């Protein structure tokens, strides 16, 4: 799980925080509330998960409970890849 979190954090910082300010982003911070990701950003995020973890995210899985923080993302990826 911690490996997944590190990888997610790297992706978020590189692609949405321009390589800066990552230390302020906590694992349970909401990407929405912190203004980290917008609607096109979430599509990039989905594409990255599908490419890196080889599973397809269904439409009804596109919800904040799965995608809106490093913790939520890590738990979602862990659940999907353990099946």
């Amino acid at each position, binding site marked *: 799980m911690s490996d997944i979190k590190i990888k997610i954090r790297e992706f978020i910082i590189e692609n949405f925080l*321009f*390589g*800066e300010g990552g230390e302020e982003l906590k694992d349970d911070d909401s990407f*929405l*509330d912190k*203004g980290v*990701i*917008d*609607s*096109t*950003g*979430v*599509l990039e995020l989905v594409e990255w998960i599908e490419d890196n973890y080889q599973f397809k995210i269904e*439409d*009804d899985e*596109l*919800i*904040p409970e799965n*995608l*809106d923080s490093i913790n939520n993302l890590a738990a979602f990826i862990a659940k999907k890849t353990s099946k």
Partner: protein
Amino acid sequence: MKGQSWTTVSDLLVYTACKYPGKTALIYKGEEISYEQLLVKALRVACWLKEKGLSPGFRAAILTDNPIEYLSAYFGSILAGGISVGLNIQTTPRALSYFLQDTGAQAFMANKRFEATLKQVLTKGTGAEIIALASGEELTDILETGDSAELHLLPWRSSCDLAQIIYTSGTTGKPKGVCLRNRNLIANTMSIIEYLGIDSSDRVMAVLPFFYSYGNSIMLTHIAMGSTLVVNQNFVYPNKIVEDMLKYRVTAFSGVPSTYAILLKRSNISSYSFPDLRYITQAGAAMAPSMAQRLQKLFPETKIYIMYGQTEASARLSYLPSEHLLHKPGSIGIPIPGVELRLLDEDGRPVPVGEVGEIVARGENIMAGYWNAPDATQKVLKPEGLRTGDLARMDQDGFLYIVSRKSDIIKSGSHRIAPKEIEDVAMELRGVSEAAVVGMPDPILGESIWLFITLEHREGIDKKSVMRHLRRILPAYKVPHELRIVEDFPRTSTGKIQKNQLKQLTALN
């Protein structure tokens, strides 16, 4: 609509609050606020602004992602005799400085979320006398516990006074402030209410930001009639929008083409039926006829209106009546009530039916001009009307079809983006020799932003460093989706970059 006596935009809220005090005006994240409560909050803002001693005609900048705060600040500013300037929440210190300096905003109402950005701007100084709520009095305190002025103590304003400035992308690169009088906004509001048949029983799903003219017109038309705004302007999770549509049994939905592309491609909307959904509107860019057909299939009982407009026209200029959706594919329809649209050639002569001319508009809804930009105003406000820059043809039945635009403004999602602004920022980076930005077709966004650059040398510069530079300065929605480093550009004989050629070559590759 006859018998209504609105003079100012704030009258829309005042009259509705008197008529339907207990009715729900707005639902946001489960919180419901009545018209009476919304008016009290707006009066508190007005009273606070009045106590600051600002003269009528002052500009009040608003920066918040909370719609209750936004509406209170918007109507409160106008009630206090000011001009509302809603700012895009996707912003950077540089963009914010520009808007504050350009408007000369004397009042600034911001949500605490933007405090860090705000501090950077205020430290540098903007040249404007700013009252920043985030660093002193909190906006929420004023809305909850401030004094509310008696209406008759607030300054009298006429229908000809400016009510609002909305910023829109300009071809020169700098966004231009479109100045709208009370009567411009009221005329457009009445016209839209008439052709959509909006009434107090409507509950509209408001997904578009209120700081753009389309979202602004949705807000004003429904507030005027005492309808309910169900607000969720964050389109990151489209299933949450679908949830709200079902939960609140919305009767209306408005979006730009990318809104519908996302709903159709990335949500579970097709798994449900929406028997209460009375109408859907679409504007902001051309919708592919195939998507219109898919929407009609998904919502067989719902009226679908394709619309066209410009910020310079307070929002709306034409609409395609829903009964013509399928047999006038690709059309932007006919003029809305109270608006005259003509197709003229460059000398101002009407073009024959079937031939291409520029859409020129006349009506009460046309702006007063651009803020502090008389030359730009003169270029579009002509004796014959507003020169829209959009080229169209008309069929035998009087229906209009957009053919192309004169300018190279990119329409991406709900945003309009001037290529020059991005090119200028790219050129600031040492090592970048030339830059060209074009919009390429995109199935979700309508157009995505592609930046092409040539380099003076390759030392110390690569794609990553260019993107980092762009992201640091530009708001997120202006950051290119694709960056290509090229050896040279296709050019005209005089050396000018041929953007159309660049687009065609890119599409081929």
